Structures are given as structure tokens and as C-alpha cells.
């Protein structure tokens, strides 16, 4: 990894559903300012890892450190206040709230009206489509627009670490490309990002580094460019 200070350190993370171990002792590190992806087959434990980090699944206290502090087992709403925000799989917009209300909920943990308004303006600059539709209920947006809204909403909490769970899911290739442009732009603006992605090639092309998950454990990790050249990765995930 690069020499930056680690913002997220995951050590020996374990998640079990009933008796089934979905995640069996994962270690991963995300440095401040990095854009890191987590790839792997269906059921490899990618989403479970992300949910566990975000506080949606029970884990031990020491298994997740955020900015040096142990935060494992904290609930999601507490983690958001510390600057860790998850965009869930399937986007999770509030369908009957307007786009503006969804964004207001993103800023729920903040009280500084002026800087919220400034961030809203920045979000609208990045995603003008959302400005046009701000009074429309979120359920009426297209899938791609909903994904943009979900990312924008997470940004409204001013996260230091943004977790993205399958942002390309169910979207047309052109829209996926647009979503990843946005992700790269957000990362360039200084937000650290850990993204789980089915589309391994696209993820490795835009990320700095990557982790490959296999049956709940990390099988490979390294610079994204190196993974793209790795024979095993090419065979298993890039279809070559």
C-alpha cells in the first residue's frame, strides 16, 4: 500500500449468518485518500464485509478500526457521525421522499445550515440532473439517477470514508460508466472510497488498489494495475 496513514483497518473480520461463516477472518487496509475495490464472485463475502464495516452486522470491537479507533460493533447511525457512510446495495433511496428530502436526510447528522447549503450546491453541480428533479419523489427516478442520488445523499454527511456496495448493479453499461466517473471525481475531491464491485475490470481500471475475495477470505491483494495483469485474476474475474 502507499505510505498514507490508514483510515480504515480491518483485522480478522468474521461474519456469520446462523452457523454459516460468510466472512472468515479478512484483513484489509484503506489509506486516507485511496480508492480501493473489493472484487470476487457472488457469495464471496464482499457485501457482508462492507455491511459489517458499516455497522449493519455484529462484529467484534477490535476487528474494525476507523481513524485509529476501534469501532467494530458500533451501530450504523453512530458510525455516520464519525464520518463513515455506506451506500447500500440496491441504492436504498427513500422512494416516497423527494430528491431534496433524500439529500436532507443525508445531512441529518449535521446542523451547520450554511455549509449544508454549500454542499448541496456542490452536489447539484456534480449531478445537475438531481437539481432538475429535486421536488420529484425519488421512486420516480431511473435506476441510474437513483444510484447518483444515493451517492450524493451519502456525500451530504461529509464522509471521510465512503463505502459503495455494488454501484453498477442493474444498470446499463453507459450508466455504469457515468457512475464510475462520478466515483472517481468524488475520490479526486479527497474522499476515501472502498467499493465492492461485480464488474471487476471496471473497478480495477479506476481504483488504486484492490482485494480479491474468495469464500470469505482475501485470496489476493495489491495495486489495481498488478491485479489486472495477474493471470489468476484474468482467468477467474475478467473472463480471459
Amino acid at each position, binding site marked *: 500500500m502507499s505510505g498514507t496513514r490508514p483510515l480504515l483497518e480491518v483485522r480478522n473480520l468474521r461474519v456469520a449468518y446462523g452457523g454459516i461463516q460468510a466472512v472468515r477472518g479478512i484483513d484489509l487496509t484503506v489509506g486516507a485518500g485511496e480508492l480501493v475495490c473489493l472484487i470476487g464472485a457472488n457469495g464471496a463475502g464482499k457485501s457482508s464485509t462492507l455491511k459489517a464495516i458499516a455497522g449493519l452486522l455484529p462484529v467484534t470491537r477490535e476487528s474494525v478500526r476507523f481513524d485509529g479507533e476501534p469501532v467494530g460493533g458500533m451501530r450504523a447511525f453512530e458510525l455516520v457521525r464519525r464520518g463513515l457512510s455506506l451506500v447500500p446495495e440496491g441504492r*436504498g*433511496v*427513500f422512494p416516497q*421522499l423527494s430528491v431534496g*428530502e433524500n439529500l436532507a*436526510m443525508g445531512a*441529518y*447528522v449535521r446542523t451547520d445550515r450554511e455549509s449544508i447549503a454549500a454542499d448541496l450546491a456542490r452536489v447539484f453541480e456534480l449531478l445537475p440532473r438531481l437539481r432538475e428533479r429535486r421536488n420529484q419523489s425519488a421512486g420516480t427516478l431511473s435506476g441510474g439517477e437513483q444510484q447518483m442520488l444515493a451517492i450524493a445523499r451519502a456525500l451530504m*454527511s461529509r464522509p471521510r470514508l465512503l463505502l459503495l456496495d455494488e454501484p453498477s448493479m442493474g444498470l446499463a453499461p453507459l450508466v455504469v460508466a457515468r457512475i464510475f466517473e462520478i466515483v472517481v471525481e468524488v475520490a479526486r475531491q479527497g474522499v476515501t472510497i472502498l467499493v465492492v464491485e461485480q464488474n471487476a475490470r471496471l473497478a480495477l481500471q479506476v481504483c488504486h488498489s484492490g482485494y480479491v475475495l474468495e469464500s470469505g477470505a482475501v485470496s489476493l491483494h495489491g495495486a489495481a494495475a498488478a491485479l489486472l495483469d495477474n493471470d489468476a485474476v484474468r482467468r477467474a474475474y475478467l473472463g480471459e
Partner: protein
Amino acid sequence: MVFFGAACVETFIQQLINGLTLGAVYAMVALGYTMVYGIIQLINFAHGEVVMIGAMVSFSVIGALVAAHTGLPAWAIVFAAAAAAIPVCMAVSYLTERIAYRPLRGAPRLAPLITAIGISIILQQIGLMIWSRNPLAFPQILDNRVFHVAGATVTSVQLAIWIVSILMMTGLAAMVYRTRLGIAMRATSQNPQVAGLMGIDIDRIIAATFIIGAALAAIAGVMVGTYYGIAHYTMGSLLGLKAFCAAVLGGIGNIPGAMLGGIVLGVVEALGAGYIGDLTNNWFGSNYQDVFAFIVLILVLVFRPSGLLGERVADRV
């Protein structure tokens, strides 16, 4: 047919006035059912008892203030009664949520439902122990001025009930649709897990929902007490069931629906009671008033289970 005569126009208007009054009270109580249902899909059968406690507390306060000969004007006494009933009801409702319902979050839906029935019985018994098993007569302090409208009469208490309930419901709507708390309530009802990802402490939102519903119930209790001039420890159960019917009529989980359902139910009930004698050749009398709410409930469940304003069953708060 009798009811085309002039006398019947007057009866109609009179029953409409009575029905709107009753409906305003049902709407206030129905809101508590529908808000809680919208957020945690629980039918809080103890909600009617919260209304009873509101009526009882206001009875005690009014009685004490009248006995003390404070010289306060009647409206100030009623205001003081409401000011006492509201925090008591809020506390009762918060505690039931905290003690009885919160530990059952994530339990099968039947568990909190049965618990709610248990809480309802407990609250009734507490009412019995504090305020006795006898019906309590409210001191008649409000000079019930009567206004004549098109041959029918409206009392000042009825007018006060309309005005207060319109103010409360407008305030509630503004809260739910305009404020940060209200938006968070709607967000939580649509997707609690994602609401948590926004940094919303869902437990606090749920508690706030119970507390707001309880405040409306307390005011409804004061209204019922001063309108009928009587309170009894079992008064909450039938009132609660009818308000629940009103919430289902409007579309359970739907806030404007609860308001509309309450008003419609009150009017249906009053008109039904007014005409049932004529329609059945006096086989049934107005003592069958209570049957209409449940007829409405059955008709709604058969023909429009999502209620008047519920577009889909999943459409909440």
C-alpha cells in the same frame, strides 16, 4: 319517506354537526394508531387507554381547580387540564414503548401485538385503581353557549373541538412534511435500515412517534371528557377500537388518511344513529350507534383493504 321533510333536513344538519365533532376526536386518536403503524407496523391497542388517561387526568385537574375556587376562567381551567394531561400521556406512551415494545423489536409481529393488548389491560386497571370503577362526572364549567344554524344547534364546546383539532392536525402535518424530525419519521417508515445509514437513531424516532401520538390522544381525552361530561376507566377501549377503524378506513399508515377516516367515520356514525330508527321502522334505535364503525371496518376490509387514501398496502406514513 320521512326524511325528505323539513324536519329531516334539520336532523340531517344536526347529525352532521354532531358527526363532525365526533369525527374530529376520532381523527386525533386515529393519527396515533396510524403513525405508530406506519413506523413499526404495530397496531398499538393500548392507544385508546392513553386517551382514557388523558381524560382522567384532565378530570382530576379540573376537579381540583374548581374545588380550590381559584377564580380562574373556565377556559383557563380546561387549558390547565390539557397542559397536565399531555405530559402524563406522553410519559405513559414513552414508557410502554421503552419497556414493552422496544425489547420486542425484531420479534415475530404477533408478539408485540399481544403485548399491546396486555398493556391495554394493565393501563385500564391502573385507571381503575386511581380513578375508581364509577363513571366520573366532569364539573360543568364551560358555559355551553348554543348557536343556531339552519334549524340545528352548535355548541361552543363543539366549535372549540373543531378549532383545536384543526390546529393540531395542521401542526402535525407541518411537522411531518416540513421539519427534519418529520422527514426522518417518514424516512424511517420507508426503510429503517437505510435511515440508520443516514445517522438517524431509529429508536429515538420511534419514541418521538409514540410521544407525538400520545399528545394528540391526551387532547382527544380532554375533548371527550368535556364534550360528554363523563369519564370512565373503560372509555378508551371502544373509542380506541373506533379510532382504529377510522385509521383503517383512511388507509393504515397514511396520515391524511387517518384525518379523513376519522371525520368520515364520525359522520357515518352520527347519521347512522340519527336514521337507523326511521330506516328500520324502529326495530333498531340510536343505541346501535356503535355498530356502524365496525360495519365500516368490514366493508373497507372487503372492498378496499388499502383504505380511502392508501394507494398500495405498502404505502406508509
